[in-house]
Structures are given as C-alpha cells and as structure tokens.
C-alpha cells in the first residue's frame, strides 16, 4: 500500500518533522518562514505514532545552517531535520540544544534591561535537559515553564 502524504513532497529542500502541534507556529516564526519567499508547506495536528499528534513543515529550496535551526529545539526538542534532493532523503538529524540563545526568548525578569530598552535578549543555556536559560544582562534564570517566545 502506498502511504498517502498529508503534506505534499518537495523536490529539493528541508523537511522539519516531529514538531509538537502546539509549537508549529513558533517554529515558523523562529525560522522566519512567515516572511520567506520560498514555497512553504505545513501541516499540524497530524497523526503520529510516537507523539500522538505532530506538526510538519516542508521548505522548498532551502537548507538551514545548524545554528539557525538549533534554535527551534527550545519549542521542538525532538524535531527531525531531513534534507531532500531530487525527492530523495540525503540526510536526517535531530536538532541539538544550542549553548546560546539570542533574540527569540523574552527574559522572565520584568526589571531586566531587555524588557525596558531596545536590546536583543541573550541567554546561556545552563541545563540542556530541562532548558534553563541564564540572562546575559540581568543574570536571572528563565526556565521552561516561564519561557515566552518573542
């Protein structure tokens, strides 16, 4: 039996699979796919054997640098990155949690300078397992449950 694809195949480009359904639009935003001119196909609340439901994004003619795509691990820690050339899978890897996070997360401390002045946020990753971020400016910790994606 031929498996039916809910989201059409792409000839060349990148597939980001195993995104938690709730994080799909965050991933689109973090990767700036909302402003790209490349063809983007996506689906969410799709059935997944492993996770119940999942989201998937396919970006035509785009290949991401690791540091670019690793940022999504904050909201999609199990996402898989699949590179496609001529409809064939050429590489497949799981995203890595980066050591530094710039811009995309809001500092939890309301009295932090990044919430008062026009300063991009910057964090170092204290713990990759439970995602604890230390603010480069106010030195306070933003953990997963208080994390807001800008």
């Amino acid at each position: 039996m031929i498996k039916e694809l809910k989201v059409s195949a792409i000839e060349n480009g990148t597939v980001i699979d195993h995104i938690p359904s709730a994080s799909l639009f965050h991933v689109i935003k973090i990767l700036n796919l909302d402003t790209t001119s490349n063809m983007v196909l996506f689906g969410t609340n799709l059935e997944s054997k492993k996770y119940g439901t999942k989201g998937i994004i396919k970006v035509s003619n785009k290949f991401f640098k690791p540091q670019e795509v690793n940022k999504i691990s904050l909201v999609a820690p199990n996402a898989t990155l699949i590179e496609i050339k001529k409809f064939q899978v050429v590489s497949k890897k799981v995203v890595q949690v980066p050591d530094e996070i710039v811009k995309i997360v809001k500092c939890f401390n309301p009295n932090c300078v990044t919430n008062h002045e026009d300063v991009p946020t910057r964090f170092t990753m204290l713990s990759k397992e439970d995602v604890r971020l230390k603010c480069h400016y106010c030195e306070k910790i933003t953990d997963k449950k208080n994390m807001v994606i800008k």
Partner: protein
Amino acid sequence: MKNRSLVSINDFSKKEQLHILELAAEFEKKPTQKILEDFVVATLFFEPSTRTRLSFETAVNRLGGKIIGFSDASSTSVKKGESLKDTIKTVANYSDLIVMRHPVEGSARFASEVSQVPIINAGDGANQHPTQTLLDMYTIKQTQGKLDNLHIAFVGDLKYGRTVHSLVIALTNFNCTFHLVSPFELKLPSAVKMHIKEKKLEYYQYTSMEEVIDKVDILYMTRIQRERFSDPMEYEKIKNSYVLRNEMLNNTKKNLKILHPLPRVNEIDEDVDENSKAYYFQQALNGVFVRQALITTILGLKK
C-alpha cells in the same frame, strides 16, 4: 585590567580581585595622589545613592580628576525619553570612564557593550554591586589579616540583599564557612547556595543571631525592610529579633568585627557604635580606597 569594565564581581578573577585589594592598601596609606589630573570621570546616578556616589566622587577628587554627571535622572534627557544607549554613548564622548547606578537590572552590562569607555557598575537594581563586594573583601582582609578559612555570619535580609549574594559568591573562593541568620521568609536564595555547594564548602542556617554570634570572625548585618513582608504582623513579630545590642557582644571572639553595608535603620543599636568591634564606618571609608584602586587600574595609571 586596563580599559575593562567591571559589571559583575566575576568579571575579575580571584587574582585580579586580590590585586585591587593590594592597590587599595597603597591608597589607604597615601590617599591623595594627583595622578588623575588629565581625566574626566562621569558619575551617572539614575537613582539616588549617598555613600556609593560620594565615595566614588571623593576617590576621583583625591586623585585630582574632574567629575561630570548627575545624581538624579529627572533633570536630564532621560526624562524626555532618551534611550539608555544614547545617554551612555553621549556621555562616553565627554569622559574617560563612566560610573553608573541604574534601577534596571542588566543596564550596566548593556552600557558596557555600547560605550566607547569602560563602565563601572555602581549597582543595577537587585543584580550586582561589585565595588561594594570589593570593599567588603578589603575590610575583612584588613581586620582579619586574611580572607581564607574564616567563619562569617550574614544576618537579616539574605533573600533580597544583593551585597550579601555577591559577597558570599566572592568568598567561596577563600574556603570560608557561612553562617546564615534570617527569618524563614528571607533565607538566602538557593541559586546563591549552589555556589557554596559547588565549592564543597559548609553553610549553616539559623533563625536567631545568638546561636552563632560567639563563634564567628565577621558579623555582616543587613537591614530588614518592612515592605518585604506581605503580612505586616509578621514584620512586627520578627523585627526585634534581628537587632544587634552591645551586651550581645560580651562573649564574642576577640577578633570579631561587625560590618554593615549601610544605611542602618535600627538593626544595630547605637550603643554598639562605641564598641571596638563595630567597624561599619571604617568599612564605608574603605570604599574610597578600593574605588581609587579600581579607577586608576582601569584607566591604566596603575598596574
């Protein structure tokens, strides 16, 4: 350390911190040295301060330098909505070094990234106040002859007191034992205790000063603020149990010294002032020497 900013106490290594303390001792012997005559130091105090601002300005004056700045941001362009970045970049055009205090946490780090001249953080909200830490270290070394292997008690508001947090972290480099005395609501945050644990040092927690006062070398007092308590009754109940009285010092160690970052309200009785173990006013004076050492090192006038 030339041209480097000091934002967090950890920006300087243990060796560099000790070097500043040694240099401060030279300035203590000879506080008036006209080596800063060609320099302009800006003191930008976006929120009020007495000791910190005046001791920085005294340090610069005794070295013959010039001071520009403000002690109240309400009379500046900040009031017109100028960004911190623009204020700093402008003042950096006029000065060789900027000393700043700001109520927003992380503002000094940000300033150090946009400024063409070095920044000394004189307090950024509840975050860091590294020159206070250095002067506390200087005072401990001055009174005990060393920083290593001491028993140090911290008393009062250990939760919100940034001077306590920075000093505890700095002293974890010196194998000290920490005695933490506070009401339950104002215990030292676990993030700070982590630093003690990482160095495998010991700490003990108490709710009354009497339990530990006779055993320690340094008694570091802090003020408990009424507004820290959601229940005013709680504050009334505990406020008197964290007051140091002269008779409590009778059986304390000979070398004990009492420190306090000041201002004091009522947590140290005035009759303690006459006791030779009271050392908080000398501690405030030491701020001048430590700041002289820092300013001249950062400007490359002392090595």
